[in-house]
C-alpha cells in the first residue's frame, strides 16, 4: 500500500521574471518540495520528478489535454482560439494525429536534407567572415524561418507573422500575466494572417501543408481540422527550433572540449543536440487537466485540478540522470529525455527539428575551430519556453 501524503505547499510563483530568467535554482527549490507539490500562487500541482512526468505523459486518459495547456480549463472558459491538436484528446486527436504522422515522418523528412542544407551553408559562411556575432539574431532566428515555411509550402507574404504568433501560442500556456499581455499586443492581426496562411489556396502543391489538405479529400479529416493542423505546424515549428539551435550553441560555447571532440567527429552532432536539449529544454512546462481523482508521487490530486508539468525539471532529475544531471556530457545517453514530450502527444515535427539543428551544428563545426561566449547570454522572458534573446560569441574560423 502506498501512503498518501499531503503535498508540500510551495509558495514561490514559477511565472515571475526571476524564476524565468534563471529557472534552474528555482527548479531545485521546487524539487526539494517533492516530485509532486502544490503551487500556492497558481492553485495548480507542480510535477517535477522524471518518473511522475513520464506517467503523466503516458496516461493521457487521466491527464487530459482537452482542458488546454494553459492554467484555465478551456472547456469551461472560452479559449482564445479553436482548440489545436495539442489541446485535444482521443478520438478527435486520433484522426488529426493520423493525418499529421502520415505526412511528417522520417521518410518524408529525409528528402528535406538537401533543400535545408544550402541556406545553412549561406548563413554560416557569412558568419565565418566575422570574429564575433550573436547566435540568436544572426543565426538561430534566421535559419528556421528560411527553411521551414518553404517545407510547409507557404507564400512569402505573411511569414513575418509566424514568430509573433508562435510567441502568443506558447505564452498562452502560462497565466495571463504581463508577459502574456505583451505577446498578445497585436494578437488579432497575427492570428488573422496565420489562419489565412493555413487555407488550402494559400499553400503550394508540394509542401506538407497541401499533403495535410489531401487528407480532407480522402475523408480522414474535415477542412477545419486541416487548417488547424497546418496552424499547429506553423505555431510549433518555428520558435521551438530557433530556441533549440540557440540553446544548443549556448551550451556548447561553455564546453570547449566538447566542441573539439565534435569537430573531430561531426557525426556526433546529433548526440550533442539531444544532450543539449535535455540540459536546456526549449519547452519547459505546460499544463494538463486531471480527469478523475488520482494519486501521483503519493499525492492525491482531485479531478478537475490543473497540473503544471515541468519537463525541463524532469530532464534534470538526478534520480533519472545521476548527480551530474545538470551538466552537459557528450558521453551520456540522453535517450528517454522528454524535451519533445513522450507518448500520444509527442512532437510530430521532431524529425524536422532534429534535421534543422543537425545541419546548422555541422556547418558551424566545419567553419569554426572554436566557439566561446563573448559576454553573458541574455535570457528571454517567456512563460513556458526557455531561450535567449541574445547569445554573443567569439569565434576562430577554421584554417
Amino acid at each position, binding site marked *: 500500500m502506498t501512503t498518501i501524503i499531503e503535498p508540500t505547499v510551495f509558495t514561490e510563483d514559477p511565472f515571475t521574471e526571476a524564476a524565468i530568467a534563471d529557472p534552474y535554482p528555482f527548479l531545485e527549490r521546487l524539487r526539494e518540495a517533492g516530485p509532486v507539490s502544490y503551487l500556492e500562487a497558481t492553485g495548480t500541482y507542480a510535477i517535477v520528478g522524471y518518473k511522475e512526468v513520464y506517467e503523466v505523459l*503516458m*496516461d*493521457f*486518459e*487521466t491527464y487530459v489535454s482537452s482542458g488546454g495547456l494553459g492554467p484555465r480549463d478551456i472547456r469551461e472558459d472560452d479559449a482564445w482560439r479553436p482548440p489545436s491538436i495539442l489541446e485535444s484528446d*482521443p*478520438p478527435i*486527436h*486520433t*484522426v*488529426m*494525429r*493520423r493525418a499529421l*504522422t*502520415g505526412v511528417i*515522418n*522520417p*521518410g518524408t523528412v*529525409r528528402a528535406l536534407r538537401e533543400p535545408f542544407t544550402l541556406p545553412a551553408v549561406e548563413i554560416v559562411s557569412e558568419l565565418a567572415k566575422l570574429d564575433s556575432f550573436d547566435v540568436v539574431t544572426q543565426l538561430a532566428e534566421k535559419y528556421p524561418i528560411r527553411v521551414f515555411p518553404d517545407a510547409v509550402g507557404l507564400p512569402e507574404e505573411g511569414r513575418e507573422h509566424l514568430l509573433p504568433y508562435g510567441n502568443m501560442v506558447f505564452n498562452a500556456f502560462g497565466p495571463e500575466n504581463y508577459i502574456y499581455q505583451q505577446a498578445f499586443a497585436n494578437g488579432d492581426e497575427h492570428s488573422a494572417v496565420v489562419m489565412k496562411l493555413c487555407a488550402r489556396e494559400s499553400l503550394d502543391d508540394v509542401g506538407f501543408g497541401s499533403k495535410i489538405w489531401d487528407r480532407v479529400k480522402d475523408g480522414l479529416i474535415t477542412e477545419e481540422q486541416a487548417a488547424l493542423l497546418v496552424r499547429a505546424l506553423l505555431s510549433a515549428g518555428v520558435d521551438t527550433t530557433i530556441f533549440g539551435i540557440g540553446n544548443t550553441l549556448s551550451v556548447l560555447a561553455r564546453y570547449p572540449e566538447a566542441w573539439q571532440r565534435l569537430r573531430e*567527429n561531426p*557525426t*556526433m552532432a*546529433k*548526440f550533442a543536440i*539531444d544532450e543539449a536539449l535535455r540540459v536546456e529544454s526549449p519547452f519547459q512546462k505546460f499544463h494538463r487537466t486531471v480527469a478523475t481523482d488520482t494519486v501521483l508521487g503519493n499525492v492525491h490530486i482531485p479531478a478537475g485540478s490543473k497540473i503544471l508539468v515541468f519537463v525541463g525539471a524532469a530532464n534534470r532529475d538526478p534520480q533519472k540522470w545521476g548527480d551530474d544531471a545538470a551538466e552537459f556530457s557528450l558521453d551520456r*545517453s540522453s*535517450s528517454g529525455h522528454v524535451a*519533445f514530450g513522450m*507518448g*500520444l502527444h*509527442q512532437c510530430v515535427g*521532431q*524529425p524536422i527539428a*532534429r534535421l534543422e539543428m543537425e545541419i546548422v551544428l555541422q556547418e558551424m563545426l566545419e567553419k569554426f575551430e572554436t566557439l566561446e561566449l563573448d559576454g553573458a547570454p541574455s535570457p528571454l522572458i517567456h512563460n513556458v519556453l526557455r531561450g535567449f534573446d541574445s547569445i554573443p560569441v567569439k569565434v576562430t574560423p577554421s584554417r
Partner: protein
Amino acid sequence: MTITAPSKAPATLDTVIESAEKVADEVLSLELRKVDGTDFPAWEPGAHIDVHLGDDLIRQYSVCSTPDDLSVLKIGVLRTPDSRGGSAYVHEHLTPGTALTISAPRNNFPLLKSRKYLFIAGGVGITPMIPMLEQAEAEGKEWVLHYGGRSRTSMAFADELLAKYGPEKILLYANDEDNGLDLNAVLALPRAHMLVYACGPGGMLTAIEELCMGWPPGVLHTERFVAAELGAASSSEPFEVELAQTGGSVKVQPNQSIVDAVEEAGARVLSSCRAGLCGTCETRIISGEPEHRDAVLTQEDKDAGEVMLVCVSRAAAGCSRLVLDL
C-alpha cells in the same frame, strides 16, 4: 562489399506427430512430441518454430499450445497456394506417427509488459495470440481479442476461445455473416497504457499500422506471415554489426536489438521509441541486407535497403554481417 556467409542452422529437434486434426477449413492443427520423450525447451508466448519439410524447404509456424506444458508443441497450418507447396505438403503428408524435424522455439514477437492489451488476429494469425491471451488472463490484465476471418468455419480455435474466455473478451467477426472485422472501429479510441498486438495478412497489418499512427508511438507490435521462400525467412540468429564511424564491430544476440548491442559495446545510437515507430534511430546501411521490422519506412525505402531502424530491424537470414554508418 562484404561477403555474407550463410548463417549457421539452428539446433534441430527430432519430433513425432502425436495428432493431426482439421480444426477449420484448410487449417490443420498438429501436436508434436519429442522422439526421446523429453520436454521441449522453455518458450514464451509469440514464439515460432522452423519446420523442416524436406531438403531445404523450411516453414515457420507460431506455437499455439501452452508454455506450461513443455511435453507437447502445437501449431496450426493454413493450406495456402505457396509456390513450393510447403503447407500443401503438411496437409497431405503429415499424419500421426510421422517423424518431423523442427527447430527449438524462438521468439520475434514477445508479449511486452503492459497494463492493458488489445489483440487483433486475422485468420490463422490467431495462433501466436493463443498463448498470449492465456498469459494476459493469468496475470489479470485487462484485454480483449478481435478475431476476423472469411467465415466462421475458416476460423481456427474460435469456438474454444469463446468457450474459455467468453463473449466479452473474444469478439469474432466473419466476412460472410456480418461486415467482418472493422479495424477502424476497433482502433478508433486509443487507450492509455495499452499495447496492440496484431497478426494476420499483410493488407490487414498495413491498415492497422496506418490506424495506429493516431496512437502513442511504440504501442503496436505485429507479426507478418513470413514470406514463403526460405532465404526471406525471419532470422533469429546472432549477427555482426560493423560500426563504420566508431570502428570495431559488435555481435547482436537473438534476444537483443542492434541499439542495445551497440550501446552495450560502449558506442552510440540516437533512439527514442525503441519500437520501430518514431524513426529517430534511422541508420544508413553501408553493406549487408536488413530485415525490416519497423512501421516507419515505406515499402520503397525497405526495398531500397539503404537505411534501417536499428531499434527493431535486424540482419536478414543468411546475412551474418551488417556494416552500418554508426
